[in-house]
């Protein structure tokens, strides 16, 4: 199932209305709490060698970059510790902080449980995110899966690594991120050009922000601009 199918929960005033007095703020109280008091971030003086898996997603060029460090119990495959660093906006920081809590609470998730976390689950725990923030800023599930693969790579359990299958970006046209990657490689670097090749978002304009984000990402990846 696509990560992009669910409609994000949004308030009708400002971006999201707070629960404390009706005054509209850009994010919910939970987001605000995690943004101003981020949990489990990687401290400057921490030793990366204490962790046995790392993951990375994004780049500053596409607006967000996220790195995670995990300590996994090799016997139980439970996540004992999960640390992160994020370059990104308020919702990027808050969603990463929330994800770090989710994978370590109640004794820690196993890697197979952690792999099932979707952006929607993180957003639900945050009490919603503004619609335009959902696609671009919830990246931690991807960084987490990258770290899980890294753990299996380091422990020579290559058979347990999962290669990310392409995701359907537009449930209407069934266009995947891989299709968009191909279009960009074929020289389509604008949304119009990509639409001409793939028909993505035609009749379903709500997916266009995600498509633009992908175009920018692949443009940066392959052409450096």
């Amino acid at each position, binding site marked *: 199932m696509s990560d992009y199918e669910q409609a994000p929960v949004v308030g009708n005033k400002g971006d999201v209305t707070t629960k404390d007095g009706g005054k509209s703020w850009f994010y919910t109280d939970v987001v605000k709490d995690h943004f101003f008091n981020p949990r489990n*971030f990687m401290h400057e003086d921490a030793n990366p060698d204490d962790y046995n898996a790392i993951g990375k997603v994004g780049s*500053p060029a596409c*607006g967000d970059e996220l790195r995670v460090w995990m300590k996994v119990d090799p016997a139980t495959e439970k996540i004992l510790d999960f640390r992160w660093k*994020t370059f990104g906006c308020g919702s*990027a920081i808050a969603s990463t902080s929330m994800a770090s809590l989710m994978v370590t609470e109640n004794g820690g998730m196993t890697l197979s449980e952690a792999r099932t976390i979707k952006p929607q689950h993180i957003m639900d725990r945050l009490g919603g995110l503004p619609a335009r923030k959902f696609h*671009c800023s919830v990246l931690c599930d991807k960084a987490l899966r990258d770290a899980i693969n890294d753990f299996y790579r380091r422990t020579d359990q290559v058979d347990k690594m999962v290669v990310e299958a392409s995701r359907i970006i537009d449930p209407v046209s069934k266009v995947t991120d891989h299709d968009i990657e191909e279009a960009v490689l074929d020289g389509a670097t604008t949304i119009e050009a990509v639409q001409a090749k793939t028909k993505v978002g035609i009749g379903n304009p709500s997916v266009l*922000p995600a498509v633009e984000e992908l175009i920018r990402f692949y443009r940066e990846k392959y052409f450096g601009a």
Partner: protein
Amino acid sequence: MLNVYLDHAATTPLDPRVLEAMLPYLKENFGNPSSFHSVGKDAKDALDDAREAMAKILHVRADELLFTSGGTESDNLAVLGFCRANQSHGKHLVVTAFEHHAVIEAALHLEKKEGFEVTYLSPDHDGMISLEQVMAAIRPDTIFVSVMYANNEIGTIQPIGEIGNAIQKHRKQNPNTMPCLQPGNFQFPVFHTDACQATGALDLDVEKLHVDLMTINGSKMYGPKGVGALYVRRGVKIQPLQFGGSQEKGIRPGTENVAGIIGMAKALEIAQGERVAESQRLTVLRDMLIAGIRERVPKVRLNGHATKRLPNNVNISFMDIEGEAFILYLDASGIYASTGSACTSTTLDPSHVILALGLPYEVAHGSVRFSLGHATTDADIAYVLDTIPPLVEKLRALSPVRVDPKYYV
């Protein structure tokens, strides 16, 4: 906690004297200037007076001013209205790459949909456009040149008078480049400037600026929102973007925003009257803020020329952190500023202005604009300088990014 509003380039509060001038036209003097009776005549007289007053300050004729709904409409009218009306003389425009979106998007539209060619001039690393650069871009089929007076994000001030002068000379020396069919022996290209950000700080005398079209608006100079003006030199033909009655010579039909226009005229009078003294005061505060941030926060970059900038504009990139997150932290401390980060824009594009300076995405994402105003005091600046360093430090501790030192050393 103090509340420090440092977003005057976005909009300014209404000056009480402006409100005072507007109030009668929101209450008893509510007439429609087009009505043929005393109530309407009162409104018409007030409208004419406002036009006269503004014309005098700008050193133009009253019939050369068109009232609009704001800077965006004035810019659109200049770009689209002029170019469409004059396309038989050539279909090439020259605009700078860091114009306001109201100019850039209009030019892009002409380029994509209406068969025009557009040359986008890149500013140098300091955010300056040179006279030579503009003149070199002019071709025989160039009909329109637009260079903004002061940039809205980085505040750099362009040599509009020099450029205007050179364009006028160019027109005289090249009388045959394009046949001239208009009364007043007008030739091409015409020169437009968007002066929205300049009204409170710079000289707006059109005779000295040598411009043919000039955009101003009310809401950046302690006047009301939703009102602007376009100066159109006599003989310059433009066509309307909307259709209706004969208001504003049919170029901009629709019942006039009487109270708004009166407020804008009053605001312009005050802004231009006080601009020299206020600019001196703000320049001191601006340089205090720039120097203070540089002193207390490592890894920052001032975007735009250090002195050829508006007295109220400070634009700084804080390396390794993302602007929206920083703006929200500042907001929680009562400081209201803005950022060129993609995350606050609905398009998810970072500032085209910072990118036009030749800087990478991460520097644009970390740019923050502090724009000072009438209410800004020494104490405000001191509070901002005390507040910023720990917030930057906190966000940097969360960040995995380390921007290449060549962008801030």
